């Protein structure tokens, strides 16, 4: 069983690597976001598998739980970006109102 879980973990890591390809080379930013999101969801599972591999899953579940909750904040923040800034390319320039401190 240990071996099976290890194999599963390695397989998931392989999948993460493939998702990372999308995150790194995604033609648009939202593609990257998709990749990152996919990596995040695999991370949760992987954490629990690692917990099993250590035979201390009760300790790792908390981390996984935290991940399940927080992973989505980052994605949300990135998507919020597009609510206020249009454009997919980095050349977009919608000047923020300048604030002067002094």
């Amino acid at each position, binding site marked *: 069983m240990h071996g099976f879980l*290890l194999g599963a*973990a*390695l397989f998931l*890591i*392989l999948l*993460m*690597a493939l998702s*990372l390809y999308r*995150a*790194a080379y*995604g033609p648009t*930013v939202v593609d*990257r*976001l998709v*990749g*990152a999101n996919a*990596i*995040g969801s695999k*991370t949760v599972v*992987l*954490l629990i598998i*690692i*917990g099993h*591999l*250590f035979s*201390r899953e009760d*300790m*790792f579940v*908390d*981390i996984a739980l*935290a*991940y399940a909750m*927080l*992973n989505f*904040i*980052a994605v949300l*923040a*990135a998507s*919020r*970006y597009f609510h*206020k*800034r249009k454009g997919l*390319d*980095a*050349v*977009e*320039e919608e000047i*923020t109102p300048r604030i002067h401190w002094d």
Partner: protein
Amino acid sequence: MIWQVDLAILALVVICAIAAVTVRDLLGAGILFGAYSFMLCLLWAAMGAVDVAFTEASVGAGVSTVFFIAAVFRTTRRTKD
């Protein structure tokens, strides 16, 4: 510690780091940085450092990526390199 997992994730971490610094879009860099911290979390977990993994999880996913995106939002995505 589980060295197989560890080794595999280490490779990913390095790739992710390189990707994060080379991508020509700061928002993308921020997102990749988030992914980078996911992997770090896994790495710490694989090495048995649960508390560190927890911290990395909460910080990486919860705040530092958000900070990055907020900062990019307030500045610009444009970058020359």
